[in-house]
């Protein structure tokens, strides 16, 4: 019997070949396939974290190797530029308010009845004894504006973004690496590096819950690196959040500091 030297598929075989081999290669428009530009990703992340307006109640636990303190606060924010925070607990600090407008921050302390502006020299000091700095509160939302974002890697679950500061940006971090959840477009872990390339801080965003129409991480862990901060941690738990409801503009004037202190 002579073996056939070349195999020529029949028309039917060609047809089935097309369906089973070629078709899956045609990109389906998938529900979550957005244009994967790094800038788009970071903007969506910021929008998801901030909303047009946001009212939140949260508790902050400041852990050190010697102590554990809890502070409860309420915050009101409009976009990225204006926010107002009031301390509700503990009793000693109740009524302390903070107002942030653009890059300036004021504080009111009821027990000494004084309002003062946080000067630039104090911007890197810790905020309320936590692992956040005053600068963090003032600059938290300007990542897309102050940094150039690059998509470093992606897997089925997450994107990894690399943020490097723009030439003229007055920022503290020389590099930020952010892993973003593809499902929610929320940050999962953000790593902050200083000008020596040293990892200074890691913030993890956990416990994503549905709040209203959006998903939001309700448990944040701020972990400073470096041996001098060993044992330190700041934990934020968001107990209540309302997004995109109009907020009284009076919250974002200097009069608000005293007026909404209690």
């Amino acid at each position, binding site marked *: 019997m002579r073996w056939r030297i070349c195999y020529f598929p029949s028309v039917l075989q060609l047809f089935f070949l097309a369906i089973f081999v070629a078709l899956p290669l045609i990109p389906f428009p998938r529900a979550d396939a957005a244009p994967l530009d790094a800038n788009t990703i970071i903007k969506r992340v910021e929008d998801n974290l901030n909303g047009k307006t946001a009212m939140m109640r949260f508790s902050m636990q400041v852990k050190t190797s010697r102590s554990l303190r809890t502070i409860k606060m309420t915050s009101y924010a409009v976009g990225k530029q204006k926010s107002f925070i009031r301390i509700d607990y503990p009793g000693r600090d109740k009524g302390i308010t903070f107002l942030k407008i653009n890059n300036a921050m004021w504080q009111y*302390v009821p027990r000494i009845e004084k309002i003062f502006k946080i000067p630039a020299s104090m911007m890197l000091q810790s905020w309320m004894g936590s692992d956040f700095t005053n600068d963090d509160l003032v600059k938290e939302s300007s990542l897309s504006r102050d940094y150039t974002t690059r998509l470093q890697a992606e897997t089925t679950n997450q994107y990894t973004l690399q943020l490097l500061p723009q030439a003229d940006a007055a920022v503290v971090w020389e590099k930020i690496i952010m892993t973003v959840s593809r499902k929610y477009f929320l940050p999962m872990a953000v790593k902050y590096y200083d000008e020596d390339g040293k990892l200074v801080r890691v913030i993890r965003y956990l416990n994503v819950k549905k709040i209203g129409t959006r998903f939001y991480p309700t448990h944040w862990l701020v972990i400073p690196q470096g041996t001098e901060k060993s044992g330190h941690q700041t934990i934020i738990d968001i107990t209540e959040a309302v997004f995109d409801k109009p907020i009284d503009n009076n919250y974002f004037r200097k009069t608000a500091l005293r007026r909404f202190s209690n």
Partner: protein
Amino acid sequence: MFIKIAIKNICAYRKRSIITVALTAFSTALLIFSSALMTGSHNKMLANAVEVYPGYLQITQKDFRDVPSYDNLIFDVKAMHRKLSSIPGIAAIGARFETFVLFAAENKTVGGMLAGIEPKNENRLSRLAQSLKEGSYLSDGDAAQVYLGVGLAKKLQVKVGDTLAFVGTGADYSFSADILYVKGIFQTGSFDFDNSTAFVNKAYFDDAMAAENYATQIIVLPQNPSKSDALAEQINQQLGTEYQALGWRKSMDGLVEAMELDSVFGYISLAIIFLVIFFVIMIYTLLNIMGRSREIGMMRALGTTPGQVFIMLWMECLILGMLSVFIGGLFGGGLTAYFHFHPIQLSGYEEQFKQYGLMAAALPTVFRPIMIARDILIILTLSLFAAIYPIFKVNRYRPLEAIHHV
């Protein structure tokens, strides 16, 4: 015999001898006085810097100098006092709690250091009380009263009797704030210090800062400040590895090095001057010796060996040299001794000095016989070296040449 000949020659060439002696004596006196003044004023500047606030001996938790955070405080001041009481050589002890706060007065907010001190002890450990300018210094019973630097008071635009507030972080990382009354204003003369520090009674501050029985450092005044390092060693052995006691030489090593560098530059300048003087003496000796070529040629012709000529001429220089450094030494030493007990006073300018940030209004010299002896030896060696070339030069001539030398 050489000595007799040398002395005869010295007396014979009077002008040369006098000029050489004058030059060398002047150099000696200059060197002695300059090094005494340099060392003296550096010591005074160091003493001023140390005594204004930092103190002669500082005890901190072992990591505090590298990481000055609330995790590295001294957490049991009372226990520390007990341990230190058994160590001899300590004249006074005081605890301090230093922290960085925001000062707010009227419309001005300024960052600076606020420290809780023990007023009575502090009086012996630093010059805070002596630097009082307006109002009064703190006392042990004070509550929310603040004693602040003149520059800081100016920035905040407060005077004695006004109020100002501070906000900061307590030792337990809690938020801390209170209102203070300005009790006094000080001026130490150190700009940086006067512009950014303020003091309160530690007993009051411990309450506001949740810092009871805590301290950022403990300052010790040794009975003998020049033995601070040795005392620090003793204290380290007694306290163990948890703490670190540092004498001022180590804790202010930056300033010590700056003074040493200044000395180096001073000595370089002096060296240049002495190089010039060396050449002047050499040339003058050369002129004189060459002028005696005939005489030396005569001696050579009569059988004096070059070696003997060398010894004879060298003896002259040696005697002249010893005489001059003796005179110079007396003169320089006298000046040094005088200014040691009566330092160069720039008083009358003390106020102005303070405004320029200089604390030393009096520059003393140090009177140390060893230093004087060292300086004398240096100049003597220099002057002897100055003679070597001229003598060699004259010895190279042959006797007949020398005789016919003009």
